[in-house]
């Protein structure tokens, strides 16, 4: 498996550009997790090994090791085990509602004693592997309706299970990833068009139902999910015949729910061109940006406030390097499996970046989607680095 290219100058073993981008993101992540958490006086009192930024660096280290380990094994061998990984993931997802632990009102974690892990994060990876493996069959087979439905089923199963947790954000990520992989694999466009069209209509119908239909006709969404949607669309949800007091109450609730987004927007907007300086951001230090989310889902607000437009564009540029090197790796892949895996990873990373940053500037509704490599959190960091490892793996074993 391991072969030694003759001309090492033109054929480097790893994609250094991507490694640099990842390093840049990890340094940024450590710096701003520090900034976001150390503003709190009580955080400074916790022992150093329990501080968020130290833990984040520990996860970076573990993730980097996982990434390096992953590169040793050819992705084709990994793909052979993908079905096993997929099945284990599905079992974990089924287990979450039974043995999982609650945090922030959702049951997404499994307690392993040492740490709590989030199966939905790893589900994304095993899904990419399994889907890549499944779609790398001969092109003719992909034209069969039976194969297409199987692929749809592979998307739907984890999607519904994650949706059930509830983790709308992670579930939604599976859709663009699956669709992109189907598209690049060469599934006839009419299937995809039908699928996109159908799901588009479905989403639109759900939205209309949730936002405007009378209560007895509405889908049973979790209350907070409905709130987030209402918040995003700026509807206070008061009935047309409500009394002024009820309407005021509805508006007040809506303001409470939109608080996070409003504060994130103020953080980003008040950063201006150059920002207020590292650890100088007031939104986070004074607690306007809720401390519970500042270092994970809303880490981008902290960066944007403290480093301004220059900082946020730098972050976006680092992600761009990561994504475009990923696409280039897809183009250079030895086989369709490699190309599909690379495309799947790129689609996953891109969806995370777009949804998370979009949420910080109110382009997207609030869904708990972390920003890869920057947001605090072991599962997310580990997954992102493993995903990058898959890309490197495809690159190392590219066609010569």
């Amino acid at each position, binding site marked *: 498996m391991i072969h030694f290219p003759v001309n090492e100058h033109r054929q480097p073993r790893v994609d250094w*550009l991507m490694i640099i981008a990842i390093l840049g993101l990890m340094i940024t992540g450590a710096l701003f997790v520090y900034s976001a958490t150390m503003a709190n006086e009580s955080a400074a009192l916790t022992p150093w090994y329990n501080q968020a930024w130290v833990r984040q660096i520990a996860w970076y280290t573990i993730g980097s090791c996982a990434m390096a380990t992953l590169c040793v094994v050819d992705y084709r061998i990994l793909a052979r085990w993908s079905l096993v990984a997929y099945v284990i993931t599905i079992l974990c997802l089924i287990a979450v509602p039974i043995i999982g632990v609650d945090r922030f009102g959702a049951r997404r974690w499994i307690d392993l004693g040492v740490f709590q892990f989030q199966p939905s994060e790893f589900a994304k990876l095993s899904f990419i592997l399994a889907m890549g493996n499944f779609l790398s069959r001969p092109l003719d087979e992909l034209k069969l309706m039976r194969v297409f439905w199987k692929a749809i089923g592979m998307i739907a199963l984890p999607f519904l299970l994650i949706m059930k947790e509830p983790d709308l954000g992670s579930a939604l990520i599976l859709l663009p990833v699956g669709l992109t992989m189907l598209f690049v694999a060469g599934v006839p466009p009419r299937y995809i068009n039908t699928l996109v069209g159908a799901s588009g209509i479905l989403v639109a119908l759900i939205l209309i139902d949730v936002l405007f239909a009378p209560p007895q006709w509405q889908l049973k969404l979790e209350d907070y999910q409905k709130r987030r949607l209402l918040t995003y669309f700026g509807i206070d949800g008061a009935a047309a015949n409500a009394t002024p007091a009820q309407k005021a109450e509805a508006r007040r609730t809506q303001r409470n729910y939109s608080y996070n987004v409003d504060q994130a927007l103020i953080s980003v907007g008040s950063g201006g061109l150059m920002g207020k300086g590292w650890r100088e951001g007031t939104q986070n230090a004074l607690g306007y940006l809720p401390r519970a989310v500042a270092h994970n889902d809303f880490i981008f607000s902290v960066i944007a406030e403290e480093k301004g437009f220059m900082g946020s564009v730098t972050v976006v540029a680092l992600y761009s390097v990561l994504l475009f090197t990923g696409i280039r790796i897809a183009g250079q892949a030895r086989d369709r499996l490699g190309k599909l895996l690379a495309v799947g990873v790129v689609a996953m990373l891109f969806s995370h970046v777009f949804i998370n940053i979009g949420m910080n500037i109110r382009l997207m509704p609030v869904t708990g989607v972390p920003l890869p490599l920057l947001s605090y959190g072991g599962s997310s960091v580990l997954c992102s680095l493993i995903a990058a490892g898959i890309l490197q793996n495809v690159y190392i074993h590219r066609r010569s």
Partner: protein
Amino acid sequence: MIVFDQLKKNDPYLRALTLAVLLGIGILVAGLWWVQIISYRHYTENQKSQSFRTVRIPAIRGKILDRQGVAVAENRPSYNVSLYLDELREEFRAEYSRSRQPQWVTNSLPFWKRWLGFNPVKKQYSKLTIPQRRALEAQVRYRVASNVVQQVSTILQQPIPFTFGDFMKHYTNQLALPLPVLVNLDPQQVARLLEGAANPPGIDLEIQPTRYYPGTNLAAHVLGYLVRDNRSLEGEVADFNFRLPDYRGHVGIEGEFDAELRGKAGVKSVLVNSLGYRQSENVWMAAEPGKNVVLTIDAALQQAAESALQSAMAGVVKGAAVVMDPHTGDVLALASSPSYDPNLFIPRITTEEWRRLSDEKLKPQVNRAMQEKYAPGSIFKAVTGLAILEAGIDPAEKIYSPGFIRVPGRNKPIEDLAEKGEYDFKKAFIKSSNTYFITNGTKAGIESIIRLGQRLHLGEKTGLLSSQETGGSLPKLVDVRRGWIAPDTAYICIGQGRLDVTPLQMAVMISAIANGGKVLWPRLVQRIVPADPNSDETVIQFPTRPPRDNLGVSERTLAITREAMLADVEEGGTGKAALVPGMKIGGKTGTAQITNPRGQIVGHTTWFASCAPFENPRWVVVVMVEEGSSGGGTCAPVAAKIYRTIQKLEAEERPSVASNDR
């Protein structure tokens, strides 16, 4: 660029993917541009308005000084104990966890969890709904704060009322500001608090300048008082979240010169966190202290005038005394009785005190020297006398008085308190003969008397503290020419009828007689000086104004009148009680009848108007007492006391009391 290589390759799928990613990144960058560059100002404003609270800091009020530089209104430090709630947050937290005792519960765990070593015993808190939690938090905060207040109360040995309602009001409205616990500590309490090593947390001793009138009632009507008012003056920053207690001058000098005395309020910004607790403070704009106002009043003389007035009669004296420099118009004393203590208004007047100050009969708030009008009575005979002499009537010519005078058009004769007999000008003046002045005044003509009144600007305000002044009333020439009957003239000749004046106007009148005919503008404020004598701010001067008018009578007329006034005091006239050894005083008494609508006499307004020394008058003293017995009996002794003080002050090596501060 190297990463775009694949675009050139013939792979439509990847090309589409690249375009999609590029588009997505473009949207993000555009969105960021919009939020961070285009809308920067908007979001910065939002951020500021939610995290900064501006606090208005009142400036130190300027002093009011008398002509010798003695402060009659100044500031003294007031020591207040404040509680900084943000320093109690740890205590709040600790108390909260104390008041929520956890329960230890044993859960039944599935076998595999027990096998993995999970502890079935767990700490659990009883669940609270959000309103329950809020209520508990509020209770906890109040408990902690009230404990601290209790400790302060023990240290200061004074009970401090502190209710839940007070606390919540402060907590919801003014969290960014310290909570005032106790204001106006006495020196012992300050010492106890300062030496106490075990002061409770969050407690701070603050010094706040507070208005103070060292003379208590001294010149209260001139100085005015302050009322609580935190509003911004025009031209100041008006947009504050919080305002520290401030005062506005209401009447008197405090009211009239409020803008100068008040200074310019400063701005302090308090950075608050998302819970509204104070994080840090920063003074954006320091307050500029107010300017000092220097009066023409002489505090010592004012004090003398006030106590002399008090002694006019038994019981509460309702009256006024004015001391004026007849050459400049400087008001040296302006007393009004009953008076009040303007200190009572700091920090806030009690309802009971206010009721006392609003007494319908006593009217302690009214400045009787200029805010109330009275019939001048016989002191107006000085003016009638000027008209008689100017009309060419020989002062030596005698008139017989039968003790009353019949006036055509009036059934009842007008009484004359002077005994019957022959009267020339001087005798008529010192005995205050109605018969003489009505007879000769009518001969001189009402129009000439009215003209003199007009030149004295009776019926008009003098412009001193305009909001507290009345102009009085004087018939117009038009009135005199139409529908005017003989009794009307008769009454004007003896200072009654359709004529009302203020004691201040009478001081101007006597000054004109004393200084050779110049009708002066009275002056109360000399200058306004910056609080810091070294500052390069300009001193605003209010120089003596050129005379307002001239009596237009001959020097001979004035000299005869002055001699008659001197005789009234020194030659056994009605004003003999004003006699002061070593000082030649000229005066005229007056006792005006106050009649009810049915024409019955219900009381007397008594007067004594004078000037001294005779050779070159430097002081004019006018005393008026309501419901006195007579001008000579009630008011002349008051004037004598004032003159004696002047004598004493002159003897002291003080800069001349009447020195013209020019």
